[in-house]
């Protein structure tokens, strides 16, 4: 059990616990906080794999902007504890074992696959430089399109959220 494997398991357990907490918390703010925990754990996993730029961007954009947006909306809409409405009994009795079976099958298939290549730790080249070179050479068209996409999203959000005058 090397240090890397130990850190992986700790971060993986934190991520899964965060996801479970997202499901089982009744107040949306607590679900949002659990999701932030999942994102920070995933950022730790990216750091473990040597993708430090992606880890930093994940925390800055996802954890520092998108989740802040979620929390603002929850605060503004004064969201409260979820009401208990009746859940279908069939979903509980048949659904959960089936879901666990499906998940186990999927996990087993993935674990047995021939893609058991040993990841070799750090990326060979400087992470940020390589990503930015690719972003401006091979991926320049999607890059410019995303700027257009963000513009459209801003306009859409503005139009949707304005009050009728």
């Amino acid at each position, binding site marked *: 059990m090397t240090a890397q494997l130990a850190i992986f398991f700790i971060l993986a357990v934190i991520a899964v616990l965060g996801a479970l907490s997202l499901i089982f918390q009744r107040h949306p703010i607590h679900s949002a906080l659990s999701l932030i925990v999942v994102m920070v754990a995933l950022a730790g996993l990216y750091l473990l794999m040597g993708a430090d730029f992606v880890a930093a961007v994940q925390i800055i954009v996802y954890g520092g902007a998108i989740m802040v947006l979620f929390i603002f909306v929850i605060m503004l809409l004064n969201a409260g504890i979820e009401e208990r409405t009746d859940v279908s009994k069939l979903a509980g009795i048949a659904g959960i074992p089936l*879901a666990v079976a499906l998940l186990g099958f999927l996990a087993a298939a993935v674990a047995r696959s021939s893609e058991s*290549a040993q990841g070799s*730790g750090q*990326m060979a080249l400087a992470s940020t430089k390589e*990503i930015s070179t690719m972003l401006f050479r091979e991926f320049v068209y999607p890059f410019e399109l995303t700027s257009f*996409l963000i513009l459209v999203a801003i306009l859409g959000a503005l139009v949707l*959220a304005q009050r009728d005058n």
Partner: protein
Amino acid sequence: MVPTNYYLVLSAILFGLGVVAFVFKRNIIAIFMSIELMLNAVNLAFVAFSQAKHQSDGQVFVLFVIVVAAAEAAVGLGIIILTARNRQSLNVEKVNLLKL
């Protein structure tokens, strides 16, 4: 070194938990957050493969996924605000005007 499979299994588990949250939660914001969880699981798979193949394409694509998730969150939360104002509730089961 951590084998790539471990990352993929974790990604599958997180994706599955995201789907479970999407199906079982009734608060519309929680449903939206489960979508973000699914996107994060996919990001993890991308970075795991990028590390296994020693190419940066996976990481570049993760950046695009994050940007698209941001745009989607902005517009989606706008729609949620409108729906909440219209139906005075954040329960998806209350959005049932088209139900027979």
